[in-house]
C-alpha cells in the first residue's frame, strides 16, 4: 500500500508550517475524535456479524473507515483545510445553490429624426455619432434611474419580492429574507438589475436576475416600460415647465402691448393727432410747396423787373406783393411748426415715435411668446424620444450557470491568493 504521509526528511511546505501544525493539532484530534465517535455509533447500530465456529472476526466498520480515512488525515493541514473549502464551495455552487434565471434585453434611444447639425459629411462614421452619444447619455441616466428607490417602489415591490425572491431552507444565502427592511430590499434589488450602456454602439443592455423565470422576465419587461416612460416624461416635464413660463411671458407681453397702445392713443388724443408723423410730414410738404411757389414768383418778379423800368407798375407790384405775402406765410408756418405755442410738431413727433416704437416692440414680443408657448404645448404632448427595442426579453428556459462558475472560481482564486501571498509573507518573515 502506498504511504501517503510526508517523508520525514521532506522539508516543511512553508516556514511557518511547524507553528501551524502545532495550532492545528487540536483540530486534527477533534476531527479524529469525531470520526471515531461516528464510526463507533455506526458500529453500535450495525454490529458485525458474530463469527461462527472459531473463524477469525472480520475487521469492523470503524476500523475499515478509519483505515480509509487515514490517507486524508495524513495530508498537511493547510491542504486539508483548502480541500474542505474547495469541496464546500463546489457543493454549494453546484449542488445547494438555487438556480438563477437571467433575462436580457437590449435597446437604443433614438430621436424621431436625425438632428439637423449632423448634415451630410465626408466622414460617414460621424453621422451616427450624435445619436449614439445621445443614447449612451440616456443609458447612463437610466443606469442610475432604474436602480433608484422610486423605481424599486414602483416596479420591484409590485412583484412581491418576498414571495418571488423568497429564501428557502435549502439555500439560506439566495433570495430576500422575510421582513427585510427597505434598505435591504433596495440593496437586493440593485443586485438583480444590471444596466450596461455600450460605449461604442450606444446600445443599452438590461439584465435582470430572478430565482424563477417568470419574475425575472416580468421585472425586465416592467423596467423597459419604466425606461420608456422615464425618458419621455423627463422631456415632457421640461416642456411643461417651459410652457408655463411661455404662457406667463405671453401674458406679460400682452399687458405691455396694452399699456403701450393706451399710452400712444392717449398721447394722440391729447394732441389731436391721428398720426403725428404724417402731420409733420404734411406740414413739411406744405412749406416745401410754398417755397417752391416762392421761387417761381421770384423768378417771375425778376423777369418783370427787367421788362419794366418802373418797378411800381401794377404788373410788377402784383408779383412783388405775392412774393412778400408768401415769404411772410412761410415764415409764419415755420414758426408755428416748431413753436411750443404753435403746433410744436417736433416734440409731438419725437414723443409719438417713442410710443409707437414701444407699441411695435410689445407687438413683436407678444408674437414671439405666443409662438414659444405653442411649441411648448406641442412638445408636452408629443413623444420626443423613442426606445427602440433591439432584443425583447424572453422567459428563460434554462438556468444561468455563470454565477456558479464565478463563485467557484472566485473561491479557488481566493485560496490561491491566500496561499501565494501567505507563503510569500512567511518566506519574508522566516528568512535566514
Amino acid at each position: 500500500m502506498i504511504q501517503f504521509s510526508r517523508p520525514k526528511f521532506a522539508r516543511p511546505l512553508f516556514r511557518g508550517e511547524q507553528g501551524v501544525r502545532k495550532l492545528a493539532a487540536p483540530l486534527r484530534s477533534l476531527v479524529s475524535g469525531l470520526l471515531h465517535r461516528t464510526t463507533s455509533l455506526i458500529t453500535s447500530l450495525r454490529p458485525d456479524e458474530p463469527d461462527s465456529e472459531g473463524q477469525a472476526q472480520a475487521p469492523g466498520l470503524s476500523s475499515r473507515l478509519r483505515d480509509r480515512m487515514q490517507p486524508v488525515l495524513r495530508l498537511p493541514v493547510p491542504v486539508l483545510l483548502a480541500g474542505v473549502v474547495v469541496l464546500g464551495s463546489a457543493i454549494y455552487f453546484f449542488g445547494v445553490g438555487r438556480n438563477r434565471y437571467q433575462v436580457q434585453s437590449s435597446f437604443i434611444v433614438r430621436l424621431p429624426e436625425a438632428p439637423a447639425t449632423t448634415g451630410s459629411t465626408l466622414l460617414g462614421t460621424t453621422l451616427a455619432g450624435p445619436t449614439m452619444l445621445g443614447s449612451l447619455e440616456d443609458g447612463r441616466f437610466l443606469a442610475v434611474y432604474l436602480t433608484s428607490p422610486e423605481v424599486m417602489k414602483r416596479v420591484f415591490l409590485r412583484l412581491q419580492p418576498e414571495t418571488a425572491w423568497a429564501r428557502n431552507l435549502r439555500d439560506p444565502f439566495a433570495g430576500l429574507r422575510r421582513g427585510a427592511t427597505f434598505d435591504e430590499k433596495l440593496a437586493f434589488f440593485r443586485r438583480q438589475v444590471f444596466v450596461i450602456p455600450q460605449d461604442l454602439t450606444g446600445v443599452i443592455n438590461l439584465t435582470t436576475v430572478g430565482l424563477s423565470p417568470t419574475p425575472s422576465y416580468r421585472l425586465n419587461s416592467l423596467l423597459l416600460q419604466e425606461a420608456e416612460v422615464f425618458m419621455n416624461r423627463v422631456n415632457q416635464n421640461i416642456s411643461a415647465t417651459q410652457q408655463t413660463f411661455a404662457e406667463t411671458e405671453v401674458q406679460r407681453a400682452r399687458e405691455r402691448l396694452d399699456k403701450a397702445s393706451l399710452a400712444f392713443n392717449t398721447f394722440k388724443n391729447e394732441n389731436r393727432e391721428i398720426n403725428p408723423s404724417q402731420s409733420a410730414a404734411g406740414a413739411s410738404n406744405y412749406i416745401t410747396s410754398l417755397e417752391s411757389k416762392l421761387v417761381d414768383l421770384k423768378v417771375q418778379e425778376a423777369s418783370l423787373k427787367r421788362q419794366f423800368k418802373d418797378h411800381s407798375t401794377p404788373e410788377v407790384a402784383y408779383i412783388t406783393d405775392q412774393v412778400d405775402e408768401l415769404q411772410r406765410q412761410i415764415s409764419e408756418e415755420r414758426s408755428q411748426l416748431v413753436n411750443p405755442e404753435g403746433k410744436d410738431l417736433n416734440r409731438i413727433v419725437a414723443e409719438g415715435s417713442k410710443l409707437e416704437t414701444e407699441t411695435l416692440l410689445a407687438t413683436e414680443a407678444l408674437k414671439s411668446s405666443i409662438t414659444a408657448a405653442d411649441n411648448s404645448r406641442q412638445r408636452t404632448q408629443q413623444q420626443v424620444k423613442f426606445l427602440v427595442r433591439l432584443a425583447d426579453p424572453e422567459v428563460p428556459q434554462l438556468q444561468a450557470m455563470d454565477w456558479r462558475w464565478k463563485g467557484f472560481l472566485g473561491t479557488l482564486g481566493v485560496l490561491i491568493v491566500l496561499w501565494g501571498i501567505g507563503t510569500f509573507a512567511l518566506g519574508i518573515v522566516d528568512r535566514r
Partner: protein
Amino acid sequence: MRSLAPRYVLSKLLLQLRVVSAVARRELQLRAAKGAMGVVGVFAEPLALIVTFLALRIFLRGAGDATYMNPALWLALGFVPFFMFAEIAIKAIGGVDKNSELYFYRRLRPLDSLMGNSLLLGQIYGSLLLVFVLGSAAWEWRPVVQDPGALIFLFLGLALLGFGIGLSTLIVGRRLPLVAWFMQMFLRRILLWTSCIFFSISFIPDVFRPWILWNPIAHGVELMRAACNPAYPIPGVSAFYFWGWVVGSIGFGLLVYGNNESLLFAVDKSVSVDSGVDGD
C-alpha cells in the same frame, strides 16, 4: 495502474509544489541578499518602477477616463501584469544558468528552477496588484472587483503565458541564440506599447484594432479590467484567444523542453542570454 492512482499523483504534485516553493524561497533570499534594501527591496523595487510609470502617465497625459474604474487601478491593471509577464519570460530565458549549481541535486531539474522563479515573481507582482486593488477599494470604500475569480485566474494566466513563452524561447534560444536576443528585445520594447497598458482597446480605431488584438497580453489585460467592471468596453477581445495562447505556449514549451532538457544541463557560458549577447 499505480502511476495514475489519485493518491500517487497527489503526493507527487505536493512534492513538486514543495520543490518549487523551496526554489522560490531560495530565489527570494538571494534577491534579498543581493539588493541594497534587503527583503523590502524585493517588493519595493518593482513597486517603485510601477509607481514611476504611473506618475509619468498621470502627470504627462492625465489619468484617463474614470467612467469605469479608478484611474490608478486601471493603470495598475496594465502595468503590474505586463511587468510580471515580461520579468517571468525574461528570467525564464536567462535564469537557468544562474541556478546551474542546483542541478547537482538529482531531484531538481531546470524546469523546477524556472517554475520557482516564476512563482516568486507571481507572488511579488500579485502582492503589488493586491495592494492596488485593496488601496482602490479603501479609497472608494466599495468593492472594486466585480468578478474576483476571473481577475485572479487571468492574472495567473498571464504568469503562465510568460512562463510558457520564456520556456519556449529558452529552448529554441539554445539552438538559435538570435531568437533569444530578439525575444528579449521584443518583450521589453514592442509589447510594452501594444499591450493596452497606456490605452484602452476601445480607443483604438477600427482600422488598427485587429493589429493590436494579435497580442494576447492585450486580451489578458483588457479582460482583467473587464473583470473589475463588466461594463468596461472590450470590443474584439476574446478570452478563448487568450487561454489558447496560454495553453499553446505552455504545451509547446513543455514539449520542446521534454525533448531538449539535456541541452540545459550542458551550460554554455559563452551564450549568456541575460547579458544580451546574441551568440557566436
